[in-house]
């Protein structure tokens, strides 16, 4: 069965955990650790399947969750022994950490809601330094695609190709360089192209994959730019830098 997976952008493992808690409408003080651990690991799987570079921090928290889960499965039988910390809820430390992070997340939102200079209030004249600061920020604001978005788009494209048929191995000489040249040629002729149009027709996965790798390489080189004009809108790819009329 097909189901659509919506990936949020998380600021880190704690953010992901808070998201799951919110999504499940769970009391932060009483986290059903088995459920949350499962969902957390599912999210990591998903991120891994997108080939996202999973930061080590995500794995550390996964280990912590599993550790807590295993501790909660153990019966509490050492009532007589006064083992330090043994009587505590194994979730305690994590809950404290989550609470603290949540407080700062809210503090961040509160800051963002203040009347900001150069957004809500303006002082006399724009000084060069402000213009530079604003310029730096524009880059963040512009809906340029990062690797994450491109990979997600690529996944959709692959899904549309359907299951791959039986694989026959033949020595066709596909080269990344040639694919890059093809993209550049197409772009030079047409100025800009929709992401989907970059890919050759047909069900040849290898060609699609090569083209995608070529695109990533070109983006990395700064030769082309991928961007959206609206969130979830179609991705456009253009030559960067030059008004290259061909």
């Amino acid at each position, binding site marked *: 069965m097909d189901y659509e997976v919506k990936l949020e*952008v998380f*600021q*880190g*493992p*704690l*953010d992901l955990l808070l998201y799951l808690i919110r999504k499940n409408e769970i*009391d932060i*003080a*009483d986290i059903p650790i088995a459920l949350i651990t499962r969902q957390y690991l599912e999210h990591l799987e998903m991120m891994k399947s997108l080939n996202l570079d999973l*930061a080590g*921090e995500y794995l550390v*928290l996964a280990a912590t969750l599993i550790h807590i889960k295993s501790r909660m499965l153990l019966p509490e039988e050492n009532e007589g022994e006064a083992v330090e910390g043994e009587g505590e809820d194994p979730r305690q430390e994590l809950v404290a*950490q989550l609470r*603290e*992070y949540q*407080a*700062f*997340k*809210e*503090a*961040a*939102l*509160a*800051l*963002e809601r*203040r*009347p*900001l*200079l*150069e*957004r*809500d*209030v*303006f*002082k*006399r*004249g*724009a*000084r060069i330094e402000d213009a530079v*600061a*604003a310029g*730096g*920020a*524009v880059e*963040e*604001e*512009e809906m340029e695609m990062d690797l994450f978005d491109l990979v997600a788009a690529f996944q959709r494209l692959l899904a549309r190709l359907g299951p791959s048929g039986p694989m026959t191995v033949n020595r066709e000489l596909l080269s990344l360089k040639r694919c890059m040249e093809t993209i550049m040629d197409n772009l030079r002729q047409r100025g800009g192209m929709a992401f989907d149009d970059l890919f050759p027709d047909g069900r040849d996965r290898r060609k699609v994959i090569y083209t995608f790798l070529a695109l990533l390489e070109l983006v990395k080189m700064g030769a082309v730019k991928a961007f959206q004009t609206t969130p979830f809108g179609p991705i456009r790819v253009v030559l960067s830098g030059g008004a290259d009329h061909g």
Partner: protein
Amino acid sequence: MDEIRAIVEAVLFAADLPVAPERLVELLKERGVDRQGIVAVLEDLREEYAQRRGGMEIRRVAGGYQFCTRPDLAAWIRRYRAGRPPALSAAALETLAVVAYRQPVTKAEIDAVRGVDAGGVLKGLLERKLIRIVGRKEVPGRPILYGTTKRFLEVFHLKDLSELPTLEEMRALRPEGEPGGGTAP
């Protein structure tokens, strides 16, 4: 006193950073106005602009006074400038919040709160002069300590750091409330 008032207004207009009352006291030394007198003039001016309901107002920010446009006119200025407003990413805001509340604070402490590495974000905030290096912590490795700048107060419309809501206040504002004794209306 009228002249003093005019001078103060002129300085506020010409200044590119918030003007501290102390600077004005020093400037107007030979006129023999004390701090209290200057603040009275500043407040009077502020009131005048507020009542006028014109395009500008005087705001109290970063320990001083500053002319700025009225917040409800922001859309017009933005349209006039035809640029996008500077935006801070969620990561930058979170990091900034940790620095603001915990300062002086080391990178390791920030990382611990957010659960991720804040290196790149800190660099960006330093470049934008919202935070600065305030010293080194006297522990092994002598890690760098970060704090917020005057620029931070100016950008976020804060008189001083004490104007930041306390983290407890914010927790109280949270709709779910604490499971224990939350008395949310």
